């Protein structure tokens, strides 16, 4: 799943480690989500969205699920 996390991090000058620490996961988890290898759980997606002050849909791209 594609996400806007890398763009949002760059905008706010936040490292993967800082984001990971803020939402309570490892840096590797954030890396995997950013490259699309791992899909965040609903709880983690909510925490990330809350951290950036956005909704889940604004950060995670669900368009690839539209056709299913």
């Amino acid at each position, binding site marked *: 799943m594609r996400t806007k996390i890398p763009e949002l991090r760059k905008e706010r000058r936040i490292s993967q480690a800082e984001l990971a*620490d803020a939402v*309570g*996961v490892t840096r590797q988890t954030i890396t995997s989500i950013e490259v699309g290898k791992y899909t965040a759980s609903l*709880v983690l997606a909510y925490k990330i969205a809350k951290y950036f002050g956005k909704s889940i849909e604004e950060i995670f791209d669900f368009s690839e699920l539209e056709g299913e």
Partner: protein
Amino acid sequence: MEDFKRKLRRRITYGIAYCLLVLVIVVTAMKMRIEDHATSFALGFGCGMLIVALAYTIKYLGALKNEAKLRALNIEETDERSRHINERVGATGINVAIAVFSLAMLISNYVDPTVFMTMLAVTLFTVLLKSLLGIYFARRI
């Protein structure tokens, strides 16, 4: 974080209790001069586990004294991707084990009946374990 601290304190208590138990068993075995192969192996295994328990106990004690280490350990243990990986490893591992045990069972039948019966028991136990765990988690989740 208080729950996690309590969990670590409990683990430390169990770790220390295990270390003391192994030490008592080793000293008793040495005093009674028990030196048969099975006991020596069991004591060696117990001592190996003692080293592991000691290492974890030291790690947990360090975490309890340092808030940053405690938080890092908590994240390491609760990280959802790591949990997901562990679940995948467990599910794949048990299937691979069943396949390998089944193959070993079939081959051993041509070699030795005792080994065959042992492999049959191991294979059946693993299949039974997988089924029981499946039922348990289907009811729990």
